[in-house]
């Protein structure tokens, strides 16, 4: 911008906050789009490293290693690359010379990636499913419809629902505040949002025990009002919220920051109120990022084990979520049941991943409405 004065957008937010894997995450189809954010040096580095992978858009070993967070970051950037599309310069396009690479190296690299993925990812999943259904359909149904399993499932769903709702609201609010206003503690908030990624789950659980447990500083107040947080549903929900805080915010912030405030200012100038501006101008732009992040957030919320394990207390039928229930079944040598219940989570994950790919595909198609 050639404006004269300091701009009100928080420029530091365009790149995903540093210190977290995924800031320069290179993964899958999104790789093609990551251009505005990465510096040229990074781009060359990445393209040199992943070679054909960047061109074909196939997931590479390097990209996969970066956890879901990498996906979140890279995809947000991708969205920017597609819609913002300020400069179309893509030095990477010019690097097709890698085609003449030694076929032996090419074959080896592909084989290693595939074998590694098969051993580490596919085989265990198949093992779970085969164990789950190994003793027949009836056995599976019996394990899954067991009272305690159903209660654990209900608790898991409730926890996920509350956690995802809370984090969606928080994520939108924080992203809006961070990209639209300037305030003291802005940098701190960005860092705080990333905290759960950096903190071990056991700490995430312990902090709630230390805060709300019997020895915690909130204990007198809680006891006086007969409120139970730790070893009860509220604690489980809070631990889950804590662990999944970054998902929505981290996804929305770069999209909002990259987009600028012009359209919203135009709307305000024309007399639109906050809600009209948000729903008609802002939301259409971030809707896919939002759906995508909610999906990831749900996946994580349902599967969270560590932090929840610490605050739950493992009361069967009361404070057991599905992951905890599986652990108990396994520890009690009920292997068939454990695998059957695991299958629920595995199948849920597959459904969620499919949904995620679908959202990615649809959002790519719709990035620029009508252009195509």
């Amino acid at each position, binding site marked *: *911008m*050639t*404006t*004269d*004065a*300091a701009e009100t957008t928080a420029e530091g937010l365009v790149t995903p906050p540093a210190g977290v894997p995924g800031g320069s995450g290179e993964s899958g189809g999104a790789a093609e789009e990551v251009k505005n954010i990465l510096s040229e040096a990074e781009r060359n580095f990445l393209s040199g490293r992943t070679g054909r992978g960047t061109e074909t858009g196939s997931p590479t070993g390097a990209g996969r290693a970066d956890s879901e967070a990498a996906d979140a970051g890279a995809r947000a950037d991708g969205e920017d690359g597609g*819609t913002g599309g300020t400069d179309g310069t893509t030095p990477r396009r010019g690097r097709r010379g890698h085609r003449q690479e030694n076929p032996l190296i090419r074959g080896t690299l592909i084989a290693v990636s595939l074998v590694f993925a098969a051993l580490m990812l596919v085989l265990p999943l198949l093992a779970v499913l085969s164990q789950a259904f190994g003793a027949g359909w009836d056995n599976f149904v019996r394990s899954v419809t067991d009272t305690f399993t159903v209660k654990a499932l209900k608790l898991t769903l409730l926890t996920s629902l509350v956690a995802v709702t809370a984090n969606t609201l928080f994520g939108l609010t924080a992203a809006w505040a961070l990209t639209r206003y300037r305030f003291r503690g802005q940098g701190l908030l960005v860092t705080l949002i990333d905290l759960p990624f950096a903190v071990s789950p056991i700490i995430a659980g312990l902090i709630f025990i230390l805060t709300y447990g019997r020895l915690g500083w909130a204990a007198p107040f809680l006891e006086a009002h007969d409120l139970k947080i730790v070893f009860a549903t509220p604690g489980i929900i809070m631990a889950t919220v804590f662990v999944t805080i970054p998902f929505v915010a981290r996804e929305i912030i770069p999209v909002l920051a990259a987009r600028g405030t*012009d*359209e919203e*200012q*135009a*709307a*305000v*100038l*024309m*007399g*639109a*109120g906050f809600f*009209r501006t948000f729903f*008609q*101008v802002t939301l*259409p*732009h971030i809707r896919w990022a939002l759906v995508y992040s909610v999906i990831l957030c749900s996946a994580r919320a349902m599967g969270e084990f560590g932090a929840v394990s610490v605050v739950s207390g493992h009361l069967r039928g009361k404070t057991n979520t599905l992951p905890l229930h599986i652990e108990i079944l396994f520890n009690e040598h009920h292997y068939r049941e454990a695998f059957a219940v695991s299958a629920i989570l595995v199948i849920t994950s597959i459904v969620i991943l499919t949904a995620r790919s679908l959202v990615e595909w649809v959002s790519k198609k719709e990035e*620029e*409405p*009508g*252009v195509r």
Partner: protein
Amino acid sequence: MFVELRDVSKRFGNFDAARKVSFELEKGTLAALLGPSGSGKTTILRMIAGLETPDGGDIFLDGQSIKNLEPSRRGIGLVFQNYALFRYMTVWENIAFGLKTKRTPKAGIKERVGELLTLIGLEDLAGRYPAQLSGGQKQRVAFARALAPNPRFLLLDEPFAAIDAKVRRELRSWLREMISRLKITSIFVTHDQAEAIEVADRIIVTNRGRVEQTGAPIELYRSPATPFVARFIGESTVVRNYNVLTGFENAPDGAECAIRPEFVRLFAPSEPVQYENSVQPGRVSAMAFRGDVLEVTVRVRDFSLATSYSLERPSLSVGDQVKVLIYRLYAFQGDQARLVGNSLLANGGGGYNFQI
């Protein structure tokens, strides 16, 4: 006065974006806010629109202070630099937006949008999304969208900056014609002096947060009030210690001045000059053909002065000795600029008061 800014100031951190900015505009004027980037022009525009709050001073529109009025109640239309069209709305919806927020009845919206689409000549593209439009079309839509709620004052932020040079000329005259047809008071921001001179009735020159001078384009060109305006508007060569030039010996040592190409006249050695003592020797150091005239750079003392030379005159070539007459120049004194004539000419270099 229809628009008046009185001592408007704005600071960002320790950067003065606007320092006691004052100017007035009559109703129906198309004014340019001209200045280099960082001179505060966009900030001034945004303060008028209400997107920034001034730290001091006041802004009046039609005699009424609008400083504390909400942006949407000021009756001002703003065309953003990059148009800021709503990406997820069609052309029609974009133009209708400002009417819907004002709870205009449906039939009224339909009529007004249709009217504006006809005005900008894009009736056929009503169903398109901004991404499907060319730069020029986007600009027209942004213009129509700003006009939809019938603003009394229109602001345009660098309206031609994002458009390629070819279309820009065409759009300039289109916009000029639109605005004069609608008789709406307007200000547009630009850093291009040629654009300001060509399009605007009045130019407000800003520099480092201050208004340097306000006036009709020809006034600014003919009598720049400050060294900045003398340099910024039109072509000129700035020289130091100009008291070595014949006819300007009275100037103080170390003083600076600006010399326009048309203030310099060259004579071939054979040509008679009426006031022989008012010329000085020079040497042609470069020549370029500019279509209808020759652009000649002449070396006088240590200065390189640019001027034009008619093809009808005796021929010249690089290296030739010439007689150089400097009629007048803009002498700088502190932050003032003043027209000074050649003291050796009969009328003292006066008679510089052409009108159009």
